[in-house]
């Protein structure tokens, strides 16, 4: 069972120390696919965050009712319901975002951050803690996406927040004086590097930012993951194996027998 923490810590751990994208390396597919522009990343991050908080609350409420043998299908049903709701809302109120995100909006159903938090946290903890955990992880995911998207959009397209009206349409027509993003001043002289909008640039940015996040998390005096063994793993606090005094390596050997 996970050790008790203050709610503030449950929230802040999702930002850097256990950032779902850069530290836990979850949700890589939507991260790479939707971080081509900051507006898309923001839309994706917020949608996923809403689903994450709602599903964490419901799963935490039902955690004593769901039999552990069928918990994954049960979690998926809960998550899929919320994704459907979010998708309908997005379609109705921000249609441009819906068409920009395309298949990645319904694919939030199988986003491993959401299923991972349900399995690792919401299924074992109280409703309030689960909601805060979901919010922290959701904010962490959104920040990670926006960081990636900022680098990729600025270098790859030479714009920042382009298509902002796609999101701002939520608050009415032509809010903020019809603000629709900046075109960076140097694009007149320097051609943007298309590679950053494409997949290779996405992986490149991902790797570099992951290195920065690791450096940031480690600089707080925490042991490096590869040196500290299982105790230093970002997932250590939620690891069922570790609670039983085992390590992941043991499981691989036992896994064949199970």
């Amino acid at each position, binding site marked *: 069972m996970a050790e008790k923490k203050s709610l503030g810590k449950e929230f802040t751990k999702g930002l850097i120390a256990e950032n779902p994208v850069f530290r836990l390396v979850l949700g890589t597919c939507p991260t790479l696919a939707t971080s081509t522009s900051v507006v898309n990343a923001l839309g994706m991050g917020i949608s996923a965050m809403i689903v994450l908080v709602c599903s964490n609350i419901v799963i935490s409420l039902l955690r004593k009712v769901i039999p552990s043998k069928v918990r994954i299908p049960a979690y998926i049903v809960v998550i899929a319901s919320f994704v459907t709701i979010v998708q309908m809302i997005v379609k109705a109120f921000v249609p441009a975002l819906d068409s920009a995100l395309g298949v990645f909006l319904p694919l939030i159903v199988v986003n491993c951050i959401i299923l991972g938090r349900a399995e690792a946290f919401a299924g074992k903890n109280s409703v309030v803690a689960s909601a805060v955990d979901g919010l922290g992880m959701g904010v962490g995911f959104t920040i990670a996406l926006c960081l990636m998207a900022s680098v990729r959009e600025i270098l790859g397209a030479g714009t920042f927040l382009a298509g902002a009206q796609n999101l701002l349409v939520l608050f009415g027509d032509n809010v903020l004086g019809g603000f629709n993003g900046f075109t960076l001043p140097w694009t007149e002289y320097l051609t943007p590097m298309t*590679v950053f909008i*494409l997949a290779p640039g996405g992986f490149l940015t991902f790797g570099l930012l992951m290195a920065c996040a690791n450096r940031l998390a480690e600089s707080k005096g925490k042991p490096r993951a590869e040196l500290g063994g299982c105790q230093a793993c970002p997932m250590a606090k939620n690891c069922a194996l570790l609670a039983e005094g085992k390590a992941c390596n043991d499981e691989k050997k036992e896994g064949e027998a199970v």
Partner: protein
Amino acid sequence: MVNGKKLVVSASPHLRTKDTTTKIMLDVIIALLPALGAATAIFGPRVLAVTATTVISAVLSEYVARKVMKRHNTIKDLSAVVTGLILAFNLPVSIPLWMAAIGSFFAIVVVKQFFGGIGQNFANPAIAARIFLLISFGQQMGNWTAPLAWKNADAVSSATPLAILGGESAEAMPSLLQMLLGVRGGSLGETCALALILGGVYLIARKVISPKIPVAYIGTVAVIMLIAGKFDLEFLAYQLMGGGLLLGAFFMATDYSTSPIKSNAKIVFGIGCGLITCIIRLFGSLPEGVSFAILIMNLLVPHIETIMAPKPFGTVKEKKSKAKEGEAK
């Protein structure tokens, strides 16, 4: 690893090789000089500006990256100079200089230093940078200047021979003599076949590179193109001298840290490069595939080495028939 540590071995005398990284790199630079001279004659003095940009920014990137990462300074081994030179050879002469500098930065910092510096890079830095620039700046990287046009006031653009062969351009083909001398459109260092062969032979004669990779590479392309061209020798000659095949085979596929060490594996590596090059040239949407072929084979090198691991002396291969009998029982 040896630095600063005692290396305990048996009693002397020991033979020491006089080869150092610096000497080898100096040989490569000497081998590249004829092609650089030819390129300057064909495409004009801007060749020197592009080359100077890539070389200087490569050395600078190496110096700063090592400094920031708190590693010892390695610019004296000249490997950054070689990377810069080869990268310049892979660019069209009309490329904006800042793009060339970004290519050098990518080659040295991302491909080489992030993975541990010289000897640790997973792919040839110059090739990776060329592909990075090709994807980033497709228009500028495909802007071929006509040969000898620099003497006139206006630069004329021209198609590469492979693009003409592929039917993408209706321009007249350069003659075979022009191909040999390099008077054709293309990247600035790849055109002069004569100078590249001269440099390659120099490297082989100085035993800097083994002939296995270039021979296997060019041989494979020759065989496939002979069949694909229905034994048309002229088509074959254009295929061998066109594109970056000679530059790639002699100078880029033979890079020490990204090509196999074992002799059989070298041949497999060369054949693989040839095969991918031909597939891209014959069936791909791009006219040229040398850089992609070498990059893909770079990534496969560890696997080729594992598969081609030599049999330890004295062991006997288990007979298949016996193994089958064992199963039957």
